[in-house]
C-alpha cells in the first residue's frame, strides 16, 4: 500500500541567543492509511515537535532545518501558507491533549462544529447542520440534536474529547495527529476514547499518529511504534515486536520502568539508561543514624484507625440550611493501617481518595467520624499539644512537584525548616550534616542545597519534597499521587526510593494513586474507592487476582496489559 505520510530525515532546531538546540534529529517515519502509529518517549524527547512539524505549526524560534515531509506525495515543506491552511483543515486533523482548553468555552458545541464545517467543506445551512449531527453521532454522542446547543462546560472530559475528535473529523481528513489525547482523562474514559479512535481509523481508512508518553496507550491502540529519545527515533517497528523484544537499550529501560500489573516485583531494575539516574541510594543504618532517633518511643501495632469518616463540601451556599447543596466527598469510610505497612487507596478522579488523605493529615476538618493515629484521636483538635506532636510524625508528599515547593526558598531552607523550627539539631554543624544526609538519601548531590526549586526537574523536585518530609522524622508518610505527573522512568526511580526508605526507616505509608500497576508494585493492602465510599479492601495480590466487587473487576479490566506481551526475560 502507498504511504500516506512519509517523513525523511527531519531536523528541527530551536534557535536561541546561546546557539541552537536540536529538538528533533534525523527523524524518519511513515504512516499508511488505516494504520495507527504511536510515537512514545518521555517529556522533552521531541515527540510533540514532530507532530507540529507535519502541520507546519512550529513556533518561532523553532525551525525545520532539514528533511522532507511527504503527504500524499506532496512535499509539505514547499507549500505556502494558504495551501498549508487547506491541508491543515481538510487533510490533516489535530486532537490536542486537554479538551478543557481546545474548545471555546463561550460558544456552543454546535456553533464551533458548524464553523469548522463551513470553512473546511464549504457546506452551509441545513446541509452543514446535518453533517454536524452525523459527526457527533459517529463519535458516539447521544442525542446530538440537543447536544448541539450545549456549551463545553456541560460536557464531561471524555465527552469533550469526543467533540474535539468530531472537530478533527469535520473536514474528512486522511490523517489525524493526536497529541496525548487521553492524558487528561480517567482510565475508563481513556479506554473508550482509544477504542473510538481505533474504530474510526479502520472505518474511514485514516492514518493516525498518536503521540504519547504512555506505553499502555500504545500497546492498546497502535499498529506500529516509534520510540524517541533525546530528539532521535531510536527504534521503529510493529507494536508486538517492540514491546516483546526491543533492540535498543533505551527501549528496554523504558519498558522495565513501566510498573507491572500482573506480578509484584521487588524493585524496578535496569532503568539506568536514563540520564541523571546514576546516583546510587546509600543504605541508612538506622540504629546509629539521626533518622532513627525518634521523638516518641511509643510502640503501637496499628498506625492509623479510621472509623466512619465523613466529609462534605458546600457546592452552593445559602443562608438557610435546607437550601444549601453539598457534595459528599467522603462517606462512611473505615479502614486501619498496621505499623510498617503500605496501604493503597485507588479510584478514579473525584472518588474522594485525596480528601481522605487530607482528612488524615489534618489539612481539612472532619465532619463526622474518628481518625486515630497511634491510638490518639486527632479529629478536629487542631490546638491540642499532644495531637500536634502525633501529627508531626505524619508527613505528606504531594502530587504536583511544581507547586509543592516554595519557589522563594532555597532547597536548604526548605529541607531544614522543620529542623530549625523544632530545634531538633544541636548545632549549626549538625544542621548542615543533616541537610547533606537528607539530600544523599534522596539521591541529590550536595550542590543542590543552594539552588532554588525552579532549577530542578519534576522528578528532582519530588525528591526534595521527600527530603523535606523526612526532615520532620515521620513515622507515617502519606503519598498523594506522588508520581502521576512524572515520566515513567523518573516514576520508577521515585518509587524505588520510596520503597528503600520505607524498608530502612520502617515507615508506614498511605499510598494514593489512580494507577493500578503502581498500586500493585507499592502496596501490601488496597482499598478501592468510588463516589466517596470504599468498595473493597483486600490484600493486593487477592485484589488483583480475584477481585470480589463488581467495580474493582471493572477497574482491573481497564488496566493496560502490556506485560502479557513482554517476554519473560525482562
Amino acid at each position: 500500500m502507498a504511504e500516506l505520510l512519509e517523513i525523511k530525515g527531519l531536523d528541527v532546531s530551536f534557535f536561541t541567543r546561546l546557539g541552537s538546540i536540536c529538538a528533533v534529529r534525523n527523524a524518519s517515519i511513515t504512516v499508511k492509511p488505516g494504520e495507527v502509529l504511536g510515537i512514545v518517549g518521555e517529556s522533552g524527547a521531541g515527540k510533540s515537535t514532530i507532530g507540529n512539524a507535519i502541520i507546519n505549526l512550529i513556533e518561532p524560534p523553532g525551525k525545520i532545518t532539514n528533511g522532507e515531509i511527504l503527504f500524499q506525495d506532496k512535499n509539505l515543506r514547499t507549500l505556502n501558507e494558504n495551501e498549508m491552511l487547506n491541508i491543515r483543515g481538510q487533510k490533516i486533523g489535530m486532537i490536542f491533549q486537554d479538551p478543557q482548553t481546545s474548545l471555546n468555552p463561550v460558544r456552543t458545541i454546535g456553533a464551533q462544529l458548524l464553523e469548522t464545517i463551513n470553512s473546511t467543506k464549504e457546506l452551509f445551512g441545513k446541509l452543514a447542520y446535518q453533517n454536524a449531527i452525523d459527526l457527533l453521532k459517529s463519535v458516539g454522542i447521544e442525542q446530538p440534536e440537543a447536544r448541539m446547543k450545549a456549551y463545553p462546560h456541560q460536557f464531561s472530559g471524555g465527552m469533550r474529547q469526543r467533540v474535539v475528535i468530531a472537530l478533527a473529523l469535520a473536514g474528512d481528513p486522511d490523517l489525524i495527529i493526536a497529541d496525548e489525547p487521553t492524558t487528561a482523562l480517567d482510565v475508563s474514559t481513556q479506554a473508550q476514547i482509544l477504542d473510538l479512535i481505533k474504530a474510526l481509523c479502520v472505518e474511514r481508512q485514516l492514518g493516525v499518529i498518536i503521540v504519547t508518553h504512555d506505553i499502555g496507550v500504545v500497546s492498546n491502540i497502535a499498529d506500529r511504534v516509534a520510540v524517541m529519545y533525546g530528539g532521535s527515533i531510536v527504534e521503529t517497528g510493529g507494536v508486538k515486536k517492540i514491546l516483546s523484544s526491543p533492540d535498543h537499550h533505551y527501549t528496554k529501560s523504558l519498558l522495565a520502568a513501566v510498573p507491572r500489573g500482573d506480578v509484584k516485583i521487588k524493585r524496578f531494575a535496569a532503568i539506568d539508561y536514563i540520564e541523571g539516574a546514576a546516583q546510587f541510594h546509600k543504605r541508612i543504618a538506622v540504629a546509629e543514624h539521626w533518622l532513627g532517633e525518634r521523638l516518641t518511643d511509643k510502640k503501637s501495632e496499628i498506625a492509623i484507625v479510621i472509623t466512619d469518616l465523613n466529609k462534605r463540601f458546600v457546592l452552593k451556599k445559602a443562608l438557610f440550611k435546607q437550601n444549601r447543596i453539598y457534595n459528599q466527598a467522603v462517606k462512611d469510610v473505615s479502614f486501619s493501617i498496621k505499623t510498617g505497612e503500605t496501604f493503597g487507596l485507588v479510584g478514579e478522579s473525584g472518588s474522594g481518595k485525596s480528601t481522605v488523605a487530607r482528612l488524615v493529615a489534618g489539612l481539612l476538618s472532619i465532619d463526622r467520624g474518628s481518625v486515630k493515629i497511634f491510638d490518639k484521636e486527632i479529629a478536629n483538635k487542631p490546638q491540642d499539644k499532644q495531637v500536634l506532636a502525633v501529627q508531626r510524625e505524619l508527613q505528606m508528599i504531594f502530587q504536583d512537584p511544581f507547586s509543592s515547593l516554595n519557589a522563594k526558598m532555597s532547597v536548604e531552607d526548605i529541607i531544614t525548616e522543620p529542623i530549625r523550627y523544632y530545634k531538633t539539631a544541636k548545632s549549626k554543624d549538625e544542621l548542615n550534616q543533616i541537610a547533606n544526609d537528607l539530600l544523599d538519601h534522596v539521591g541529590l548531590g550536595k550542590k543542590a542545597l543552594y539552588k532554588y526549586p525552579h532549577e530542578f526537574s519534576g522528578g528532582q523536585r519530588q525528591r526534595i519534597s521527600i527530603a523535606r518530609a523526612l526532615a520532620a522524622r515521620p513515622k507515617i508518610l502519606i503519598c498523594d499521587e506522588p508520581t502521576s505527573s512524572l515520566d515513567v522512568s523518573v516514576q520508577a526511580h521515585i518509587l524505588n526510593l520510596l520503597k528503600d526508605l520505607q524498608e530502612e526507616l520502617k515507615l508506614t505509608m498511605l499510598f494514593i494513586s489512580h494507577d493500578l500497576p503502581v498500586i500493585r508494585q507499592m502496596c501490601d493492602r488496597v482499598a478501592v474507592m468510588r463516589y466517596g465510599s470504599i468498595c473493597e479492601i483486600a490484600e493486593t495480590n487477592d485484589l488483583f487476582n480475584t477481585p470480589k466487587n463488581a467495580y474493582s473487576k471493572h477497574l482491573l479490566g481497564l488496566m493496560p496489559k502490556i506485560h502479557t506481551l513482554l517476554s519473560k526475560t525482562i
Partner: protein
Amino acid sequence: MQTIPIRMRTNRKTRSAMREKFSQPSTVVSGVLLFLVTICATFAPLIAPTNPYDLSVVSIMDGRLAPGEKMFDGTVAWLGTDGAGRDVLSAILFGLRTSLIVAVCSAVIALFIGLLVGLTAAFFGGRIDSFLMRIVDIQLSFPAILVALVLLALLGKGIDKVIIALIIVQWAIYARTVRATAIVERRKEYIEAATCLRLSSFRIIWKHLLPNSISPLIVLATLQTAHSISIEATLSFLGVGVPITEPSLGSLISNGFDYILSGAYWITLFPGIMLFATVAAINIFGDRLRVLLNPRLSK
C-alpha cells in the same frame, strides 16, 4: 549542534531578557526622571537657589517677577516669583519634597496594613475573611477624595494628618489585591506541606505566603504613590491639605491660581508641570515594572 543544559540557559536568558526590557526608551526615560525627582526632593535645601520660607530673605518687592528676571538681591528667578516674592523654582523643589514625603509615607504604611489584613483574610478564610473583606468593601465604596476631605475636616491641617487620611483611603486597595494573590497561593501544596509540618500560622504566613504574594503589591505601591501625590495635590488645592507654611505642589498650584488671569501664569504652570512629570514618571515606571514582574505579560 549540542544540547545545552536547560538550567544554565534559563538563567542567562532571564538576565539578558531583563536587560532588554529595562533598556526600552519608556523605562529609561521614566526611570531617569524618577531618579532626578527623588534627588531634587531629597537635596532641596542644598540645590534650591533661595530658601522660599525664610522670611528674612523673601521680599514683597520681588513679587510676580516673570521667569528669568533678576530678584532684588541679584539672584535670577529662572521660573519667576510668586505674589509674595518667593522664587518659584525653589518653592517647587521644597514642595516636591513635601509631596513625596506624604505620598511615600502613606503608601508604605498603607501597604503594611493592607498586607496584614489581606494575608490574614486569605490564610484563615471563612468568617474572618468575610468580616475583613466587608470592611474593605465599605471602605472602597466611598470615593477616595470624599473620605479624605471629611477626615481632614475632622482632623485639621498638617502633614501628619494628610498622611493619616491617605492611609485610611488607600489600605483597602492593598488588602484587596494581596488577598486575591494570597488566596491563589494559599491553595498550593507548599502551604499544605507547611501545615503538615505543624509550623505556626504566623510562620506560614510570614515565610511562605508573604514572599509569594508580594510582587503584584510592589507594582501597585508605585502606582498608588503616584495616585496619592495627586490626591494630596487635590486636597492642598482645595485648601484642606498641608498648611501654607509647608507647601506642597498642590498648594503651590492653588497659590498661583489667583494670579493666572492677571498674566502671571508661571506661578501655577511650573508646579503643574512638575506634578504632571512626577506622576507620569512614576506611573510609566510602575507599568513597566508590572510587565517585568509578571512573566505572563512578557513574551
